[in-house]
């Protein structure tokens, strides 16, 4: 049953309409069903199934605002919480930045609902493919690590301006890390349905990367041409979105992009678009205030910082259209469904073959901003780092990079045709492999 149709939702909405005349309010209902199987040493050693329903209620009287989240499934508790919020709003100091809730769009465009994952289908798939996968890995004298999971998320949002919207999102993900002692290989696939999951490709890639990684050599730190696989590119784009592309950070002059609208910030072959409806994206079609999140925002066009994303508050401040990018909490609007593309692409094998000397990165680990306003980030390579010389690859020890990520993406030599989705805490990124002219590697890790 859809969350909007549940008795509890309907009771809550009826109560709000009857008893909160003259109040501004926003109520969101969330329903999550998820199951994760984690494996290590070719055994499923942990798993976690969770079924949760929660309600978020925010009330405002003028600029006096209070919010509560409830796990409870009990209508009386919801009413108690609403009454408690009403009393708080009578006395609490004002939030000077509160600007109300979004008005409903003139027309609520209908978007095709996302499919829902059936848990029994997930279990059947687990029982059929894990024995084959583990055996395949064992036959190669290797060990399998990783996770297999699905999540069904459904949300509904209602506010006192008459905005009523609901959306859902489902995803299934398979991550395979293959290990041989300290040498490892990795790949992943995330999809909207179990049928769309590229399980065979993930197994093949992760085994092959591990097998090619035996006896890594040491290279000197320095500036190198770098080939980044889609997961490594997604990691950079995710960090870029988090520290630099959020409108609040730009507005408060805390971002590398502050004051750079209509300025070239990346290589002119790159376009980055916030696009939840992109066929490879996995997203709800509304934001955390229930506002539709369906129109692409061309943030970087031909390398030029072209546009920003907006929630209701910043749309009012900048006199722009709400793009449906409200997030929970007070982070302000941040793009969460970015797509990095280029008009010209190549096969990744061709890209590697043209490298005289460079480094191949499977993915990064533990990225963190060193100086967000400068775009300076540090992270380590993981699960397959190789030296490329005249198109030939040899394993090398993992490396740390410390560099300005905007500068790294300002020198692009080639863009892959292997675009795929990589999930993150909020949303995810669709990105291809990239061949970048220069990345600064500052340290070599011990084996």
């Amino acid at each position, binding site marked *: 049953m859809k969350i909007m149709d549940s008795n509890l939702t309907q009771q809550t909405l009826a109560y709000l309409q009857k008893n909160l005349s003259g109040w501004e309010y926003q109520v969101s209902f969330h329903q999550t069903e998820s199951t994760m199987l984690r494996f*290590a040493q070719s055994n499923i050693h942990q*798993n976690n199934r969770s079924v*949760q329903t929660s309600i978020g209620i925010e009330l405002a009287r003028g600029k006096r605002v209070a919010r509560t*989240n409830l796990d*409870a499934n009990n209508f009386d508790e919801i009413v108690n919480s609403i009454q408690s919020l009403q009393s708080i709003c009578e006395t609490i100091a*004002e939030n000077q930045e509160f600007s109300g809730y979004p008005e409903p769009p003139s027309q609520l465009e209908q978007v095709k609902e996302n499919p829902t994952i059936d848990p029994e289908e997930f279990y059947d798939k687990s029982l059929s493919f894990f024995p084959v996968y583990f055996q395949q890995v064992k036959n190669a004298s290797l060990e399998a690590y990783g996770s297999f999971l699905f999540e069904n998320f459904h949300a509904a949002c209602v506010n006192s301006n008459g905005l009523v919207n609901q959306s859902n999102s489902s995803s299934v993900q398979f991550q395979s890390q293959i290990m041989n002692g300290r040498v490892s290989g990795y790949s992943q696939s995330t999809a909207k349905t179990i049928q769309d999951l590229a399980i065979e490709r993930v197994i093949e890639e992760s085994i092959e990367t591990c097998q090619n990684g035996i006896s890594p050599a040491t290279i000197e730190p320095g500036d190198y041409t770098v080939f980044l696989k889609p997961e490594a590119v997604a990691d950079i784009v995710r960090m870029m979105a988090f520290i630099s592309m959020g409108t609040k950070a730009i507005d408060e002059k805390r971002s590398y992009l502050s004051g750079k609208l209509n300025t070239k910030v990346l290589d002119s072959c790159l376009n980055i678009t916030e696009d939840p409806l992109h066929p490879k994206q996995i997203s709800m079609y509304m934001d955390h205030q229930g506002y539709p999140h369906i129109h692409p925002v061309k943030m970087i066009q031909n390398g030029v910082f072209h546009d920003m994303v907006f929630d209701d508050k910043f749309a009012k401040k900048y006199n722009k259209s709400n793009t449906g990018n409200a997030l929970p909490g007070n982070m302000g609007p941040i793009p969460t469904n970015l797509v990095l593309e280029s008009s010209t692409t190549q096969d990744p094998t061709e890209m590697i073959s043209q490298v005289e000397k460079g480094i191949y990165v499977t993915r990064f680990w533990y*990225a963190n901003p060193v100086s967000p306003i400068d775009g*300076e980030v540090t992270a380590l390579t993981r699960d397959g780092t190789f030296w490329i010389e005249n198109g030939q690859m040899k394993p090398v020890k993992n490396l*740390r990079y410390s560099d300005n990520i905007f500068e790294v993406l300002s020198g692009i030599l080639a863009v892959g045709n292997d675009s795929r989705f990589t999930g993150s805490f909020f949303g995810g990124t669709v990105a291809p492999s990239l061949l970048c002219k220069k990345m600064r590697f*500052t340290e070599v890790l011990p084996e």
Partner: protein
Amino acid sequence: MKNKLSFYLDVAKSLHVQYADIRFEEIHSHDLRLRNESVDSNRMSVQIGYGVRVLKNGSWGFASTNNIEQKSVEETVKQAVQLAEIAAKVSTQNIQLASIPVVEDFVESVAAIDPFEVSLEEKIEYLKEASSVMKIPSVFLREASMSFRKLHKFFLSTEDSFIEQTRHETGCGITAFARSDQGEFQSRSYPNAFGGDYSTFGYEFVTKTDLVGNALQCAQEAVALSNAPLCPSGTKDIIIMGNQMALQIHESIGHPAELDRVMGSEAAYAGTSYMTRDKCGVFQLASPIVNITADATVPGAFGSFGYDDEGVKAQKVYLIKKGILEGYLNSRETAYKTGDQPMGAMRADGYWNYPLIRMTSINLLPGDQSLQQMISDIDDGILFDGIKSWSIDDRRMNFQFGSQYGRIIRKGNLQEVVKNPTYMGESPTFWKSCDAIGDESHYHIYGVPNCGKGEPGQLMKLSHGTSPVRFRNRKVGVIQ
């Protein structure tokens, strides 16, 4: 409650499990934040639910829900059992548990003043006052926050342990954001970044932390940073202040001492560890003055508790003694494999999560030097204060950490402020270069509210006791 939970476990027993436990939790939270003296966020939450963990055919299953109606119980327990059966069918493992005493106990919160009994007005006024003090030229943004949690938890196992625990969690902090005339932006926090400091005391912790009394210095240091030169690069002696040392202990000692990482079960995500089993008892990991404990028994420490989420009583054990690797953080499952006693480190972030091996309060025991003594013995060095940035590899060897605030040390004296100070190293080499640890008078236990681990991601509350520490000949300042 025991009878109610027994019914849950009866369902599990009827499905022929080897072992089962249930955690029923009620969690009340309140987070309050002011930005420029305006109430930016005032959020409360209530979470009530349970998680059931079963061991069947040598494999684990876990399921949780916040549907606490009786009719959902059977379904949730069956789901946990179904997952254990799936795992068993495709795995070759045979998980066994180290034995522990059966206990029936009640552990009460150590809070003197229940933060949920303090009026919202009083909390806001206090934060407003602290924020107002930071209102000096060049400080364009001021944040002041408090967060509180009240936890009531029940644990029942098929071995007949029944434990009830209550716990308060209190945190508070301030941050000043300054911009120079040249547009340089820097921030400074007190008593630490990421919401400040945390404990399991009550509202009395907020009073003791004294945000108001420290606000002006915090703001002045933010302004100084916004006008400061970049931290120089090179090899120097360094002093790491307590709040940054908490991070150093956390990342390069605490995480690698988790036995699930050591034994490989976290390899795919969090990674493994350089503290391999063969090194235990013999590996000189740090200089001989370094002694580090995992101590969940210190009253008020954020990493303290009565019992972990397997029903193991809180303990104090040595991880590092005289610089040598002495022990690990473990679980009943890993303790069975190593032949050790469970030391009580299995904890879950809420009823909806499976317990993992987590840090408790990982404490570097105090040394014998004053901060002034440590500074006076440095010819060319840098002092690091306040967490800003951190990155460490998946074996916890190579790290690069950044602080909010740096001070040049020249010929035994603290000199000018430097911005974006960073230092890097390889964990054992770094710890071996430690030649002085601050004395008891500088010792403080810092609460950490956001330790991430596991899939699905869990955020654990823990702590690190430490004084300022000196390390010799370290690589600093990577940004050119």
